[in-house]
């Protein structure tokens, strides 16, 4: 399978990429690792007329310790997130989640920015960065703005990004002193999660993100409120699906997904990884 014909432009800078995409409008798309976009184009589920390649913007591939948070360039590949000593020390949940994305081949190409911009509820890093209370930085023709992860996901494969806005950085608060757990339930190696959970906890404070539990990644705020109010993990985990609207598909019914979410939230919050 070969994608339908398109024009290919390689951007030399973020500003150039944004102006190219603005110029071509709705028909243009950024191309990062291509590991979500190219499969869709081969299946004709996406048919952009112009691809603006941003994968070589190496100045947007970095992981920096910024004191209270870690700043990750949008073009940083999953492989580099997984192996980052800064993240392993300060946000181990994110490094660990990245190591569960697809296969090594996928992680050598796919980027954290592409994963978040694609806004797939079944992907691991959108829900994980949501649980971590991340802030995303977007650059458009009129400048730069910050978007809280909790305001970013607006629908199935839809986000608060304008078509000509580029994600440039992901800022993730450090989880110093917290325990964390990542639970990905699937049946075959390298698959997406049937249901997944990313969670951290520090005393009565916690963040819980759900993978594949609706049309967007889900922040399980009822679980966090229950823990803040002194509930046991087992009791709080029963509220896992309060904010979710899971769908049935060939892998699972909606009811089974709700059951999985409770079990996996409990396991993730009970995890003693630190």
């Amino acid at each position, binding site marked *: 399978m070969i994608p339908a014909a398109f024009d290919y432009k390689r951007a030399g800078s973020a500003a150039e990429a944004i102006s190219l995409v603005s110029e071509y409008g709705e028909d243009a798309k950024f191309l990062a690792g291509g590991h979500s976009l190219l499969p869709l184009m081969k299946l004709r589920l996406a048919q952009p007329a112009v691809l603006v390649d941003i994968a070589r913007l190496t100045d947007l591939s970095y992981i920096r310790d910024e004191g209270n948070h870690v700043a990750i360039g949008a073009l940083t590949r999953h492989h580099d997130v997984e192996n980052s000593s800064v993240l392993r020390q300060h946000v181990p949940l994110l490094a660990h989640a990245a190591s569960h994305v697809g296969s090594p*081949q996928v992680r*050598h190409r796919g980027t954290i920015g592409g994963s978040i911009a694609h806004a797939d509820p079944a992907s691991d890093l959108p829900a994980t960065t949501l649980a971590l209370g991340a802030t995303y930085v977007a650059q458009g023709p009129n400048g730069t703005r910050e978007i809280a992860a909790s305001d970013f996901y607006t629908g199935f494969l839809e986000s608060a990004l304008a078509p000509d806005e580029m994600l440039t950085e992901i800022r993730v608060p450090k989880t110093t002193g917290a325990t964390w757990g990542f639970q990905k339930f699937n049946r075959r190696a390298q698959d997406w999660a049937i249901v997944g959970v990313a969670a951290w906890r520090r005393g009565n404070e916690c963040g819980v993100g759900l993978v594949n539990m609706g049309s967007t990644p889900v922040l399980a705020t009822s679980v966090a409120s229950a823990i803040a109010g002194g509930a046991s993990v087992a009791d709080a985990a029963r509220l896992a699906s309060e904010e979710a609207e899971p769908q049935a598909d060939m892998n699972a019914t909606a009811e089974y997904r709700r059951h999985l979410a409770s079990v996996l939230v409990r396991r993730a919050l009970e995890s003693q990884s630190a």
Partner: protein
Amino acid sequence: MKITVTVNGKTREGDVEARTLLVQWVRESLGLTGTNIGCDTSSCGACTVHVDGESVKSCTMLAVQADGCSVTTIEGLANGDTLHPMQQAFMDNHGLQCGYCTPGMVMAAISLLQENPSPTEEDVRIGLEGNLCRCTGYHNIVKSVLAAAGK
């Protein structure tokens, strides 16, 4: 679009449509048919090659994305009649039956050992999760990779 790629150590030039997949260019324009297409949907790993030394599924990459890069295919491994140690290990340990998945398995396994030179059996099984084999049941493939790591 004009591209220049170092393939198996040689500079190769091409004039490709933007939509040309790397696997298609390597097979059809360069005649390097050792790299197989199994699923064409990014799942099976039969098309695995190295781009700048790292394993990549060449059915999920455009040839234009490889412009200026260094690509190694299965044909680039042996030194004359001397097989690459990983190829030899697959041969010695019966790591293949029909052989369809083998070029991709070997390329993925070499990339795996570059990142983790002394893997456990579990590391090898997880590290090869992007590659499917319909014949061997994986046991001898894992054995081959562990044997190559021991050398």
